[in-house]
Structure formats: structure tokens, C-alpha cells
């Protein structure tokens, strides 16, 4: 793009001035930034709650809080991180990147895009406000099993239900928008198998969202009527069944897990080829593996429920189906390593985060395979082994990829470079502390410490102490991350249009700071082929 075009854009179609720009915006880049900042603030709030949890667990005995408040902390930490931080961050990345990657001028449904973002602060606000209500915030775990979340829950639960409904609306609208954008707004010359993997993974994730979120809405609606209108969906005394709640919840919950990791796979599939200076290995097998994982994610939900009293045949089926997920996931890991193999690697911050993602996510995958073995799950279930497992896949998996993506595309978002030296310090700080935080939790779980307990017997004291110290250090690392990002936005050195010389993708053909309106005319076939990952 020439500078003449850019100034033309600025003059006629530039952003509105002042605060109303952000309220009224229908621009995918503005909305992407709003999502990212919202997610970052929620990440800090959810992290603060986690600091409370680790502070109480630093030593045996109850020192800081009542057990009920501890349960509220674990519950709200989980809900905020899943629905407030990880999911909005990926939608933010999708908003920023998908139109640029498919050569579209904006999202297909820009006004709905504005609405799906602006629901979020209200939903998040309602959720957080429950802390200040009589009876306290929800305290039944992020999985809110009935009847603890119905008959025995605090009054604030109805606000939680409303917040979940709103978050669900937002997610479904976001997903519809992404599907519409990818299928209808894609550059006419771009075939599906030309699409970058981030676009592919988000397209597949959108279908998971549309399938799973209404099921969650159904679950919380049944809770609402059980609590307030005399129904007994989950109450055995009225002919209901509390285990049915778990089936419904996990029919949403398991696809949800992949909603939070498939876009991460996409991000990593961009970063590794760039810094290995080598094309992505096995592009089409990556697409098929993603689709297989998405399909399998719908048919394995009851592996979260091996101890509910399922018939043996059910347990066997869910065990086999679960083990199968290891295959397409393995394919992805092998493809990433083959991409690195005989490359010419450098390790700038995005690459450090992406490579450590592959390491640590794989460790989470191993513990996941162990958990999938139904008889062994008897000893693992609801212990800190599970806590360690899902933090390895969600923190050093999903969150890692979001941080990697932020460093990778920050130059394109801001037109400026971040401080590479500080980013490396931050990386090593975070990766050491996160392992001190979560690795000992494997040992705690195997030794028999249940999850969601505010106090523990003395045999668990040492590892909890180590884990808490790691937790505080990891929490503090986000102060540095905040500084690095603000420093980049304010004082960063000007970036080049393609700050990573081997990076491929239409977004890098734009100006150093992507212009407010990009791809007003669709890219040519030649350009698409040049920038394709599937070369």
C-alpha cells in the first residue's frame, strides 16, 4: 500500500475521536483491541484471585479467610479465566487477524461485532459483583454441579446464571461472525486450502462454539428454573437426576476445552515456521487433525464422570474414545517438530513462547492421556493431579499461545517494536515460575491431596509451599508484561511492515501499523499464493 492511500483513509474513514470511538466502533481492529484489553484486565483480576488461593494454601491451617470464601475464590478464578480471559482473548485475536489474513476489509457483521464485545463488560461486571452480595459469590466450583449450585447455593447464583447467559450470547455471536467472515468475505481468489492455519482453527472452533454454548445455556436455564420455579431437573426427590446435570455440563465442557486450545494450535503453526525459516510441515494434515480433534471433542464428555456410577460399557467407550484424541494431537506435535527440523532457527520472544508451548502443552497432554485411563482415573480424579493437568494445557497451552501471538503481531497492531531484551527476561521469569507453581501439584495429587480444599494435612505442606512461591513469582511476572506492552505502545521503535523477514501471511503485506481500513480491494491470486502457508 502506498502512503497516498493511507492518508486518504485517514482523512475520510479514520476513527472517530474520543471515547465514543470505542463505544460506537464497528472496525474489526478497534474491536479486536477492545477484546484484548478486556481479556487482559480479566486475566489480572482472575490472577489476583489465584494469588488469594495460593496465599491461603501457603501453609497448613486457615489463616486468611473463611472456607466458603476460599470456595468462592476457586470458583470465580475458574469462571473469569475461562469466560473472561482466555475466550475473549482468542476472539480478540480472531477479530484483529482473520479479516487481514483472508484479505477482507472487515468482519462480515460489524454492528453485531460491536454488540458481542459490549455485552462482555456487563457480563463480567455482573459476575464480579456477586462478591459484594449477601451470602457471597458462587462457591460451587466453575463446573457448578447440581444440587450444590441449585438447592444449596447462595442467592447470587441467579446473577451468575444471567452472566453466563450473556457470555454465551457474546460467544455465539462472535462465532457466527467469524464463520460468516471466513466463508463469505474471504478474498475471491483464496481457496479454503490457501487459508492460514489460524483461520482454519478459528473456523473449526466457531462450529464448536455454536454447538456447545447453547447446551451451556440450557444447563443454566434448567438451574434457574430448579432454583426459582419449582422444577426438579436435577433433584432426585422430584424425579430428576444430579448426574444428568454433569452430562449436560460436560457435553458443553469438553468441546469448551478445545475451544480454548484449537486457536492456540493455529497461532503456534504461524510462529514456528517463521522463526525456523522453513515452510510449515504437513499443512493439510494439520487441517485434518484439527477437524478430527473437534469431532472427537463432542463424543468424549463423560471421561470427566468416570466416578459417577456409569455402567462399565459406558466407561470403556469413553476411555477408548478419549485415548483416540492423543492421535491427532500427536500428529500436530510431530508436525511442529518436523517444521523445526533442519530449519535455521532464531529465538525471538514469540518463538520462545511457541517452542515452550510445544514442550509444556505436551506434558499436559501426557497427564491427559493418564487421566483418560478409566481405572487409573479412580486415583487421579478430583485431586491436584487434575489441577496440574489442566493448568499445563490452559496456562502453558492456551495462555502461552496468546502471549506468543501478542509479541508476534504487536508490531502489526501498533507499528512499533517491543523491547526484545525485556521480553526475554519476562519469558524466562514466567517459564521458571510457572513450572515451580504447577509441577509440584502433580506430586500433591498423586500423594492424595484433593482439589478445592482450603486446608490440608501436614504431609502436603512442603509442595504447597513451593507451589505458592512459584505462584507469587508467576503472578508478579505479569507486572513486567504490562510494562513491556505499554512501553511498546508508547515508546516502541518504528517497526517494519514485515518485522519477521520469513513471516508469511497477507497481514504482513499491509503497512507497518495496519491501516484502519485494509483490503478495500481484494488481494490478487499471485499475492495469495506468495503468502500461503500451503506452498
Amino acid at each position, binding site marked *: 500500500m502506498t502512503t497516498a492511500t493511507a492518508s486518504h483513509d485517514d482523512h475520510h474513514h479514520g476513527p472517530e475521536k474520543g471515547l465514543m470511538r470505542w463505544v460506537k466502533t464497528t472496525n474489526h481492529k478497534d474491536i479486536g483491541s477492545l477484546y484484548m484489553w478486556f481479556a487482559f484486565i480479566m486475566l489480572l483480576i482472575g490472577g489476583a484471585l489465584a494469588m488469594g488461593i495460593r496465599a491461603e494454601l501457603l501453609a*497448613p*491451617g*486457615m489463616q486468611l479467610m473463611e*472456607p466458603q470464601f476460599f470456595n468462592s475464590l476457586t470458583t470465580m478464578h475458574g469462571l473469569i479465566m475461562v469466560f473472561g480471559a482466555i475466550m475473549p482473548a482468542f476472539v480478540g485475536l480472531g477479530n484483529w487477524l482473520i479479516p487481514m489474513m483472508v484479505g477482507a476489509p472487515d468482519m462480515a457483521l460489524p454492528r453485531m461485532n460491536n454488540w458481542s464485545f459490549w455485552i462482555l463488560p456487563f457480563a463480567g461486571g455482573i459476575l464480579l459483583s456477586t462478591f459484594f452480595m*449477601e*451470602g457471597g459469590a458462587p*462457591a460451587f466450583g466453575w463446573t457448578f*454441579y447440581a*444440587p*450444590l449450585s441449585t*438447592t*444449596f447455593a447462595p442467592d447470587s447464583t441467579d446473577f451468575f446464571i444471567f452472566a453466563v447467559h450473556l457470555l454465551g450470547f457474546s460467544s455465539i455471536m462472535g462465532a457466527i461472525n467469524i464463520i460468516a467472515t471466513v466463508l463469505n468475505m474471504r478474498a475471491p481468489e483464496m481457496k479454503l486450502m490457501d487459508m492460514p492455519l489460524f483461520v482454519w482453527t478459528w473456523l473449526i472452533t466457531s462450529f464448536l462454539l455454536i454447538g456447545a454454548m447453547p447446551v451451556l445455556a440450557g444447563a443454566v436455564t434448567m438451574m434457574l428454573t430448579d432454583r426459582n420455579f419449582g422444577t426438579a431437573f436435577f433433584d*432426585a*426427590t422430584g424425579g430428576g437426576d*444430579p448426574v444428568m446435570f454433569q452430562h449436560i455440563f460436560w457435553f458443553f465442557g469438553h468441546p469448551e476445552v478445545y475451544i480454548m486450545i484449537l486457536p492456540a494450535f493455529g497461532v503456534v503453526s504461524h510462529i514456528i515456521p517463521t522463526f*525456523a525459516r522453513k515452510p*510449515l510441515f*504437513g499443512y493439510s*494434515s494439520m487441517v485434518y487433525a484439527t477437524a478430527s480433534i473437534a469431532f472427537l471433542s463432542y463424543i468424549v464428555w463423560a471421561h470427566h464422570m468416570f*466416578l*459417577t*456410577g456409569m455402567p*462399565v460399557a459406558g466407561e*470403556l467407550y469413553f*476411555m477408548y474414545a478419549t485415548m483416540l484424541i*492423543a*492421535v491427532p494431537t500427536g500428529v500436530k*506435535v*510431530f508436525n511442529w517438530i518436523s*517444521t*523445526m*527440523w*533442519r*530449519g*535455521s*532457527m532464531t529465538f525471538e520472544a514469540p518463538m520462545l513462547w511457541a*517452542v515452550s508451548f510445544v*514442550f509444556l502443552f505436551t*506434558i499436559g497432554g*501426557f497427564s491427559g*492421556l*493418564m487421566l483418560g*485411563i478409566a*481405572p*487409573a482415573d*479412580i*486415583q487421579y*480424579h*478430583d485431586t491436584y493431579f487434575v489441577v496440574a493437568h489442566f493448568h499445563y494445557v490452559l496456562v502453558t497451552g492456551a495462555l502461552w499461545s496468546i502471549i506468543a501471538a501478542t509479541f508476534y503481531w504487536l508490531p502489526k497492531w501498533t507499528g512499533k517494536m517491543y523491547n526484545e531484551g525485556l521480553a526475554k527476561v519476562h519469558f524466562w521469569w514466567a517459564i521458571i515460575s510457572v513450572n515451580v507453581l504447577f509441577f509440584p501439584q502433580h*506430586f500433591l495429587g*498423586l*500423594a492424595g491431596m*484433593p*482439589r*478445592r480444599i*482450603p*486446608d*490440608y*494435612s501436614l504431609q502436603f505442606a*512442603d509442595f504447597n509451599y513451593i507451589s505458592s512461591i512459584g505462584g507469587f513469582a508467576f503472578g508478579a511476572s505479569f507486572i513486567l508484561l504490562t510494562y513491556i506492552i505499554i512501553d511498546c505502545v508508547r515508546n516502541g521503535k518504528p517497526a517494519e511492515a514485515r518485522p519477521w523477514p520469513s513471516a508469511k501471511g497477507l497481514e504482513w503485506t499491509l503497512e507497518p501499523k495496519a491501516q484502519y481500513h485494509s483490503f478495500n480491494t481484494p488481494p490478487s491470486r499471485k499475492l495469495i499464493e506468495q503468502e500461503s502457508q500451503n506452498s
Partner: protein
Amino acid sequence: MKRLTTLLSVLVATMSTSVFAEYGLNMTEGVTEISKNIYDLHMMVFWVCVAIAVVVFSAMLYSMFAHRKSKGAVAAQFHESTTAELAWTIIPVIILVLMAIPATKVLIDLEDTSKAEMTVKITGHQWKWQYDYPEEGISFISNLAQDSKDAIRGTDEDRKKAGNDNYLLDVDNRLVLPSGKPIRFLITASDVIHNWWVPDFGVKQDANPGFINDAWVEIPVGNEGTYRGQCAELCGKDHGFMPIVVDVVTQAEYDKWVSEQQAAAKAAADSANKTWSKDELMAQGKSVYNTNCAGCHKVDGTGMPPVFPAMVGSPVANGEAADHIGLVLHGKGAMPAFKMLGDSDLAAVITYERNAFGNTGSVVQPSDVKSAR
């Protein structure tokens, strides 16, 4: 410094399997056939994962060190191989099938409760366990031991002393089981979902309100002793404070224990037929209250409003006795039902609530409770 030594010892421990157990790093092998099978399965899968990790991570690490731009590596341009894709699809499938075979065997074995020779019914309540021996006519409640309760907000010294190094893993009434006999557990709950878990038995089963799950255990002769576990499903405020303690004894000792318990049960039933004095009721009521009610309503009766109302000046405790008895028997909202307690204990605790904390309610006799059931 002590922490540093711990850290170092952990690092050393991870290098040598023989000290795993000492530092509580690994799953317990347990004492039953099931728990041993689970342990073997766990170790098998663990070592398979280690082997895969060694292969995958060494390839990755080698590549990261050898194929660096700073070492002058020039990037190759290969980007697909159907043979490779097929290999790393098919080989994992074979490994998974080999893991699934023993897992299936263990699963089918542990779900077969048909061999059992005796039955214990386990009921989870917020936040205690009830054990019933239907054939022997024994029934009792098992609460967290008082010294552990006191130590929660006490000093480190208190916690070390509590339950002889079993802080939070000690109860007032233990489950007693004979060795060498297959036992079926029928597991249920009265309020929310709980989970009865004793790692050394390899038994962990959800206790669902309104439904009965089963599990079985046979502790081989020669493994008499004390085994401990905890509730493993979030069940509310005191989820972390409802441990499980099982005394496994020889058949002869078990028979002796059964006859003692039956005699005690008879004495309790007799006491429910007599009329108690107010002082007797108050004394007994205080101990029942502190064990069962003080968790929410507090020892001094101030409660935790609004979820757990205060006893002090309570309209229920100062109102009609019949309403008070009904509330305690059947529960309401967050208040669980207490009908599993005996008539004498219920009469005592209701009388205590109506006359302690400055309340001025009437005295309730066991016969009142009996007729209200």
C-alpha cells in the same frame, strides 16, 4: 534453609524411584488387589509417556541446538511426507491399543461387586459420613476429630499434635472393617454430591443424593491397620473437613466390635424411652451441637448470616417446639436434614438450642422427636 533442603531432597528423590513413597511423590500402591492393579497401570502409562517424551523432546532439543541460524544452519525446504504422517498416526494407535488392553481388564474387575460377602452403606452428609451395617443393625456418624477442628485456626504446634500427626485426617468414630472378606459398599448422599475415597483401597466413588452407587474392597489378611482418606467432590463450605478413617481388624476383633456396638445401640434406644432432666439434655446437647451445628451456627450461636442464621434470639429456637423439631429433622435450603441422629441426641441438641445463647424456648424430650418423625 529448611525449604531449600526440602527442594534439594525432592530433586534427589525424583532421580531414584526407591524413595518415591517416602516423599509422597507418587501414587500409593495400596493394599488391595484393585489398588495394586491401578498402581501398575499408572506406572505402565507413566513409563510409556516418559519413553515418548524422551524421543520427542530429544528430537526437538537436538534441532533447537543444531539447527540454529547462529550456527550457520541453512533452512531445508521440505514440507510434507505422507509416509511420515502415516507412521506417526499408526504407531500411536498401536501403542494406545496396547495400553487399552490391561486397562480394560482392570476396569471390568473393579466394577464387579458380585463377590461381596458383607455390605456397608455409606451416606455423605454436609460435612460428615454416616456408616450403616444393615445386617448387623449398626449405624453411626463420623465427624472430623475435635483436636483437628480446634487446630484449624490454632498454632503450628496444635496442628502437629492433632490426631498424632494426622491433622485433618482424623475422625471421632472410625469405620471398622474385617480383613480377608470381600465387602460391598453402597454409597449415597443426603444433600449434595460427595465422594468417598480411600487411596489405599483403590476405592473412590461419587455419593449422589437420591441414587446408590456401589464399589467393593477386600483387604487381604495381614494388612490390619488404619487407612485414611478424604471427600473427593466439592460439597460446600467444609468439603476439606470431612475425612475418612478406616480401622481394618481381624475377623475375631471385628466380631467383638460388632457385639459391643450392638449393646451400645440397645442402650441408646433404651435411653430414648426415658424422660431426661433439663440438665442432662443441656449437657448432652452441648456436645451434639458443637459436633454437628457449630460449623455453621458457630459455638457461640452467632451463626454466619444470612446463609447460616444466628441461634441467639432465633425465632425458631424461641418459637414452637414442633417447628424447631421439624426443621432439624428435615432441613430447609442450606440447612441439611439431621434425621440420621438418634432421638436422644436430637432432643438434647434442640433443648440446648432453645435454652442456651440467652434463648428461652421449651424443653424437648426424646419421645417428642420420636412422634414427630
